[in-house]
């Protein structure tokens, strides 16, 4: 055995006992960057050190959020995160402060997503309340989108879906962020189409979302094909041809090119007839 090997063996055995990365300096920025790299346990350790040294609201909020993904994930860690978040909300005197709003949002996310047995009804209520907070800003608007999603997809008979979609649609009025409006409109378009309620309504929302700008280049082809096909089915050949032609111009290597070319040809033939 080489000395290096023996040393590594020893270190390996002692690893659980040796002091960890304790004492290494770190900032809030470092911690959030660790979160974006999915290194939640390291982020949580860092935030905990920061919160122990200086229990500011920002530090405790960061700790709570990183705790949500601390591994191994269990209802105990999630409950701990929830305690911190609730405390942040309770002690706050300014209901429109960023951390208070964010903490309320994440409490709702715990109910909806993070606890092992989600409580969708409670989450929906929490989102509703948050979305109605005056001066709620971004977090209130996100909550409105979440509420709409849960409302549309609550397990109910398909016959109720039209009414639910209409209610969700009303939330659009309170959204000022273009991104969030667009997200909600995609959800609405999907709902109108998947539940087979109204193709024109689906097309309408898709067109507005398209106008707002789709971030993901890869989805743009789907959008164009979808709007074209919906327009074709609704019976608006000119519009359909417009979207299809745009698709053919921008996605020359797509698997749908041949098919859509045929569709365009058919539409033109229809025009001539």
């Amino acid at each position, binding site marked *: 055995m080489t000395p290096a*090997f023996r040393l*590594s063996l020893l*270190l*390996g055995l002692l690893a659980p006992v040796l002091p960890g990365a304790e004492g290494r300096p770190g900032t809030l920025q470092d911690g959030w960057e660790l979160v974006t790299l999915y290194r939640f346990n390291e982020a949580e350790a860092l935030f905990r050190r920061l919160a122990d040294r200086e229990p500011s609201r920002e530090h405790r909020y960061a700790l709570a959020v990183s705790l949500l993904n601390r591994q191994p994930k269990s209802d105990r860690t999630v409950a701990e995160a929830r305690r911190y978040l609730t405390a942040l909300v309770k002690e706050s005197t300014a209901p429109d402060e960023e951390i208070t709003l964010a903490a309320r949002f994440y409490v709702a996310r715990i109910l909806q997503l993070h606890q092992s047995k989600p409580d969708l009804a409670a989450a929906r209520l929490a989102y509703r309340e948050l979305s109605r907070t005056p001066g709620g800003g971004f977090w209130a608007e996100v909550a409105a989108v979440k509420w709409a999603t849960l409302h549309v997809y609550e397990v109910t008979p398909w016959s109720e879906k039209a009414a639910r979609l209409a209610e969700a649609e009303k939330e659009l009025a309170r959204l000022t962020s273009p991104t969030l409006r667009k997200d909600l409109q995609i959800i609405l378009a999907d709902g109108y189409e998947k539940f087979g309620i109204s193709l024109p309504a689906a097309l309408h929302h898709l067109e507005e979302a398209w106008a707002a700008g789709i971030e993901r280049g890869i989805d743009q082809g789907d959008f164009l094909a979808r709007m074209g096909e919906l327009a074709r089915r609704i019976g608006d050949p000119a519009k359909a041809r417009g979207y299809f032609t745009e698709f053919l111009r921008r996605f020359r290597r797509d698997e749908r090119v041949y098919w859509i070319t045929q569709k365009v040809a058919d539409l033109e033939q229809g025009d001539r007839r």
Partner: protein
Amino acid sequence: MNTSGSTPAAFRRPSDWTKHLFILLLLGIELLPLYMMVQVSLKDNAAFIRNPWLPSSPADWQWENWVHAARLVLPYVSNSLFVAVTGTMLTLALALAGAYFFARSRLPFSRLLWAAFMVLMMLPGIANIVPLFSLLKEMSLLNTLYALVLVGVAGGQAFNLFVLRGFIEDLPRDLFEAAEIDGAGHFQQLVHVVVPMSASILGTLAILAFLNKWNEFLLPLIILRDRELFTIGVGLIYLDGEYVKQWGQIMAAYLFAALPLLILFAFTMRLFVRGLSQGAIKG
């Protein structure tokens, strides 16, 4: 070989030819893979595809398959030898000491410990691979041959302890008593009484352990990354994974992989056969 009458010497029928036939038939089938390995190792693919079963004429023998195999396999053989021999020696040394503990004493916890060792034989290992892997990673033992040695030693404990304990318990007690009167401690007793008495069983167990480690491929497959460290089991799997199989080269490689075993057996066959035949291993 010692022939002190354990055979029914006076009890003989005139002819044993039916028995010979029976034995030879079974052995013939058992030896068929060996035959295939040798004859295919001297063919090229075209000859193999034309006629897989019969050997080609000596003029067409492709000796370069052997050259290729030797060049390919020898580094693997060297790695495997290190792992298997080191592992075998450690396995037996530790198991012998452990068996001495169990055979010679009824100290507190010894029954519990015994049960704990025996349970090991019943653990199915597949799902344990990932934790084991993480552990080796923590110990910086990934991509090393030492990991194979250590895990192999741990894996061999249960069976060898089981056999050796039975053996030591069956040794005549007066040997130990005489040694104790001479003032020998447990360690001296182990070295001067147990080891000489159990040479042949140790030899047998050593060969079994060696074979076991020689054929191991799952663990090395997973923890070895660099080709220089490959053991023979992994090397052969890699060879077998080629899409265009050069059957001749593959079989030649197999043949060369078996070479160290052949040498080992050639010299220790008597030891091995006698060890097993002396009734060392029993339930």
